[in-house]
């Protein structure tokens, strides 16, 4: 049977503290995933322990929002944050490495922020 999963809501002002709590509890970051649907947009933060236990956080965002980077807590976060910036147009402050929009050389800027349904209209 499928693993039972929860997506704990978190806000932009809480995310750095939530990341610090995860670090203190022995978790490590395994992914950030941005999702945009016609009705909502959010970022999933997934953390994992060495015993493979995992935890997800869900942070609602909008295109053009500015979020605090968690790369000061989890260094690897800078890759995911640059990716989300280039594909979705969400900004992050204080990233460990800021590629300033050159992480992905896509022909269409913020290509993943346009849904097919919107494209057709």
């Amino acid at each position, binding site marked *: 049977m499928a693993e039972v999963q929860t997506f704990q809501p978190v806000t932009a002002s809480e995310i750095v503290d939530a990341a610090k709590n995860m670090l203190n509890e022995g978790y*490590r970051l395994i*992914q950030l995933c941005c999702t945009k649907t016609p009705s909502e947009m959010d970022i999933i933060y997934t953390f994992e322990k060495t015993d*493979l236990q995992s935890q997800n956080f869900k942070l609602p965002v909008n295109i053009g929002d500015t979020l605090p980077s968690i790369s000061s807590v*989890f*260094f690897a976060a800078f890759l995911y944050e640059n990716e989300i910036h280039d594909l979705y147009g969400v900004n992050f402050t204080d990233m460990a490495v800021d590629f300033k929009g050159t*992480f992905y050389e896509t022909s269409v800027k913020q290509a993943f922020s346009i*849904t*097919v349904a919107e494209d057709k209209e």
Partner: protein
Amino acid sequence: MGERTIIPFGPQHPVLPEPLHLDLILEDEKVVGAVPSIGFVHRGLEKLVEKRDFHEMMYVIERVCGICSFIHGQGYVQTIEGIFDLEIPDRAKFLRTIWAELSRVHSHLLWLGLMADAYGFESLFMHCWRVREKILDIFEETTGGRVIFSVCKVGGVWKDIDNETLKKIVEVLNVVEQESKDLTNVFIKDFTVQKRTRGVGVLTYQEAIDVGAVGPTLRGSGVAMDLRKLGYAAYGELDFEPIVEKDGDCYARTLVRAREIYQSIDLIRQCVSKIPDGEIDVKVKGFPKGEYVSRLEQPRGQVVYYARANGTKYLERFRVRTPTFANIPALLKMLPGCDLADVPLLALTIDPCISCTER
């Protein structure tokens, strides 16, 4: 302190034919820092979920990589099955495990060949790939394809392997095991190989955890994490422990992959002895609705899939977090302190697949 120089490495490099770019910061011949760049060939395959039926999308996801293609397909269907909360037949679970472990054997043999090539050890490279051909022949016989198999589907698998063929696979693997021993002995015992790899690119236990390293890169630093221990597919019914080496250097990462070849062969033998008779799929009704995060162990390490579905035939989002993407920060930790001449070899020890990363 010597004068600092920045040397561009890649995206085209004779020893690393993958579009990965590193700006190497050097003091004389020593690397003191590195800044990575990817994104030269980003394909945006994930975006196709908005235009492809969720069943058809399996064939797209398989094409994320030409080496781990089966496990990408398996991860995709497992994620969708997670949303459906669908239990697939036991035989299908064992078949998926057999193909996944065969993929690991062929991936590790391919990687050992590339390592040999990086040393300039051409004959060893050719022998590794010669042995690997036997695995590709098994794929061709059981699925019809050598690279892209298209045997996974939501609810099970498309093709069965009869018990006679399973016995033949074990016989071929006995030969592969023997021939691999001759090859891996060179990687383990040869003085010149050890000279290039021992003490180079050390990633400590804590660094490996902190930077989110995965797979043999993580286990080569002594961290006993292997997603197969979650028990997905048939792994819950198999007896194995993660392969771990403690030194955290290029040699340790090589040893992990060499030993995992034998572990995978053993797992396939266990599968063949335990595989039950029965159906290979269940009927899937309706469309998925919900979201699910799935984690699997690919040859290169942990892969993470996320899917969100709204009850129509198209998914709203499907994401693949590939092992190479996760291992880039680990590479940045390993590089400082090494010689410029060691960089190609060191980069190879994370087994980079930019095809996956540029999904």
